[in-house]
């Protein structure tokens, strides 16, 4: 379900991933590379990414729509064609027209000029005329508004007439214009108002993403293959496997720490309700709760990792490659000793807000429980205050906190985007941020899917913990 949602989002992204990949070289190589992306290259990239297939098993469309629109090379052409259909409803004619324009575009880009008729024209005019012809015909592939189309038609015919050196495109031009006229004459707008269900079969992007396809070298998500990242061609699964442990450890540690502090604090301040300790700690906790974590993280970095102030902790990352020895096992003392300082600042900024949240909840639920009749009974029985609070009340007041534990797993992915970014922590959060800014769609979709799975896992774990804590709940029937 979630993966489908993520899929829908990614499909609607205005950026054509093909364009993104094809043009990626522009950044560094710039002038050296012959960077004009050829049609052939686009086709190859499309096929490699599996974008030459329909998106889903079926789609709701109008009767007029073409059911194989996805086969067209460029996203802009696809969009233009579907708008064309909305305008006139007669796909057959539109297709003929489209192909006639393509033919003209192809012809103009490889046209040889008649040099014998060039006299009287400056070389500038000649070169401009040729380019203008070419772009006019190319841009016709992307426009459908009748006024604009007419403008382009006029300019093409006018130029064709004016410059005698442009030869050999008369048939193409007239073919194109008559094809367009045919489109206008045979409007079938009624077709746009009849809904149709287009069935695409199993050879579609979603199916291949989920179940894989032998011929396309895809294992599918069911076999743990999330596809390859657009930005660096690495397997998304491998990538996530490298990042996930860091985030998971960070979140687990932070939850552990925050429970360690917040449970006693919550219990104590509930016990001392209305006293000075309670009000002071409440105010502090409340302030912490409202402090934006990225603000705190920036300040921490500024105070504790800056040689101008205190250089207690490293700036970012999780290890120093010049000290770190790759032969250390992750559980070895040397490794833990080396990596621990890197976790301190992220841990503090990650923990304080959740700790304040949990301690507030803890306090609330403890107050509730202390009001209950059975506590009064226990007190009346003459049990010591310590025993009443710690034995009877605590256990029951832990329930709301356990519910929160369900969020641990999804939080390992999404909870710390900004913090991981600030501390250049190589976890899922910074990974997904990079993926999003570079529009690495397979990665984004994979993260959303994984979060869904982990949320369910979280609920499961919380349920199990419920059973452990609350003897009244039992799943045995």
């Amino acid at each position, binding site marked *: 379900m979630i993966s489908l949602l993520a899929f829908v989002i990614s499909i609607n992204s205005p950026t054509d991933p093909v364009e993104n990949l094809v043009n990626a070289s522009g950044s560094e190589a710039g002038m050296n590379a012959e960077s004009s992306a050829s049609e052939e290259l686009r086709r190859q990239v499309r096929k490699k990414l599996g974008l030459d297939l329909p998106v889903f098993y079926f789609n*709701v469309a109008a009767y007029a729509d073409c059911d194989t629109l996805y086969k067209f090379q460029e996203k802009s052409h696809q969009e233009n064609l579907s*708008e064309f259909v909305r305008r006139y409803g007669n796909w057959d004619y539109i297709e003929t027209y489209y192909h006639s324009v393509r033919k003209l575009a192809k012809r103009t880009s490889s046209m040889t000029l008649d040099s014998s008729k060039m006299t009287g024209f400056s070389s500038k005019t000649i070169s401009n005329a040729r380019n203008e012809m070419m772009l006019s015909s190319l841009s016709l592939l992307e426009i459908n508004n009748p006024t604009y189309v007419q403008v382009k038609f006029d300019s093409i015919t006018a130029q064709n007439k004016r410059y005698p050196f442009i030869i050999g495109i008369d048939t193409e031009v007239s073919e194109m214009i008559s094809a367009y006229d045919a489109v206008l004459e045979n409007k079938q707008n009624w077709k746009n108002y009849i*809904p149709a269900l287009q069935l695409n079969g199993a050879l579609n992007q979603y199916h291949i993403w989920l179940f894989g396809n032998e011929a396309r070298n895809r294992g599918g998500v069911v076999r743990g293959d999330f596809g390859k990242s657009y930005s660096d061609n690495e397997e998304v699964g491998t990538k996530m496997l490298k990042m996930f442990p860091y985030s998971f450890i960070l979140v687990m540690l932070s939850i552990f720490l925050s429970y360690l502090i917040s449970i006693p604090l919550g219990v104590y301040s509930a016990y001392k309700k209305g006293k000075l300790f309670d009000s002071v700690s409440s105010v502090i906790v409340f302030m912490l709760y409202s402090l934006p974590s*990225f603000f705190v993280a920036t300040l921490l970095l500024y105070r504790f990792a800056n040689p101008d102030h205190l250089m207690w902790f490293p700036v970012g990352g999780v290890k120093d490659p010049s000290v770190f020895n790759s032969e250390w096992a992750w559980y070895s003392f040397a490794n833990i000793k080396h990596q621990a300082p890197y976790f301190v600042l992220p841990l503090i900024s990650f923990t304080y807000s959740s700790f304040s949240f949990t301690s507030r909840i803890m306090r609330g639920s403890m107050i509730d429980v202390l009001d209950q009749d059975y506590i009064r009974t226990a007190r009346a029985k003459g049990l010591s205050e310590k025993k009443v609070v710690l034995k009877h009340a605590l256990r029951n007041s832990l329930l709301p906190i356990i519910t929160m534990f369900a969020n641990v797993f999804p939080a390992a992915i999404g909870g710390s985007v900004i913090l991981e970014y600030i501390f250049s922590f190589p976890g899922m959060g910074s990974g997904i941020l990079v993926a999003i800014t570079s529009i690495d769609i397979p990665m984004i979709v994979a993260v959303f899917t994984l979060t869904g799975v982990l949320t369910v896992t979280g609920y499961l774990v919380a349920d199990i913990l419920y059973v452990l804590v609350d003897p009244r709940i039992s799943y045995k029937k």
Partner: protein
Amino acid sequence: MSENLNNDFSFKAFAWLQFKKNKPALVSLYLLMFLVFIALFAPFIANNQPLYMKYKGESFYPAFSTLMNESKVDSVYDEQAEAQIVFQYDLMDWRAVELNAVVWPLIPYGASTADKYNRDYADPGVEQRMRNSKGEIVKLPGRLKHFMGTDKLGRDVASGVIHGTKISLLVGLVSMGIACLIGILLGSLSGFFGNDGLSTSRIQYWLGVIGVFIGYFYAFISRSLTLKESFDSGLLEGVFTLFISLLIWFLVIIGFVQFGKLFKKISFLNVEVTIPIDAIVSRAIEVLNSLPIFILIITISALLSEKSLWVLMVIIGLTGWTGIARLMRAEMLRIKQMEYIQAGKALGLSNMRILTKHAIPNGLGPVFVSFAFGVASAILTESGLSFLGIGVPDDIVTWGSMLNLGKNEFEAWWLVIYPGLAIFVTITVYNLIGEGLRDALDPKLKK
């Protein structure tokens, strides 16, 4: 009925009384009013144009005139030069002009206007410079000082904090407004009717389901071109067309349902079936809750081809309604059992009437609480996004974008501290109000 209303009224008064007892919440409420005041009057609190000035013997009100007068151009006759001097309010550097008298706003700088003489992170504690009317570079007098420093381009941080108030309040209110609308509607429907409260004939039910798809088809697929063209020609027109599309969708569904009435005579088709509205809404909430919302928001705003504050608010609103819907649902479940609702039913009032006139108004209490907390989290989301440099247009100064600048420039602590504190204060204010409201509206305390 009337007694019930009285009760209600007294409860409101009681809640207000309770709220007033909560000192931090009350202070927060005043603070919030102050923030709203700052946001509304930001152009008169922080502006690089004087509030009042006397120039060549004539009085002008630049800060006000720029808002009123579109051309922003005025002129004065210079007797010495015997010529008309034409000037444009927003382009003049009024510090470099000899004025007979002048009243500056509290912070004499605009949020996005760069002070050429104090750029490259002017320290608030260090001497700052300006150009006077004689064209000399002199020490900036204390009154005109950037007392919160400037950023690299020389934009005043204090002014940025003031103008950022407006944006953060706007983000909070608009996005939570949207979230509230959706949340209240869905939550109350699902809570009030439950899985078996809303029933209809079988044929109408299935025609309705078909109508949803057919309506979607006519509203969006058939009109895709119209929609695109209207959005191209302008946001307002686009929203209008979108609204028409939604209307078409709605009408088609209604049409289908009404059409189903014709078949009522066939008994097989007239069997009563219930609409599991509660299940549908609960599933939707679950799905949205299992998504990493912050990542979802980043993804959507990064994929948009253009950055826009309004779109950002809509996204935050569309993803933030689940909490309100859940609360509303729980409240409806409680209210449903109330005597006055039962009485209304017994009187033969229609379900819709009971829902809109009695159930929803009485169930809004927790929504206020959730609204206050929601505004806080929406502001946090927006500033987090600006901090990452995603979502907000580059020429708008927000608290988060200032923090983003500060993060890269450790020495310029003023770029971190002041906007950070502003965010902190605003969030605290909303949270405290939310807290106060919760305590005040808590039914347990009603006794």
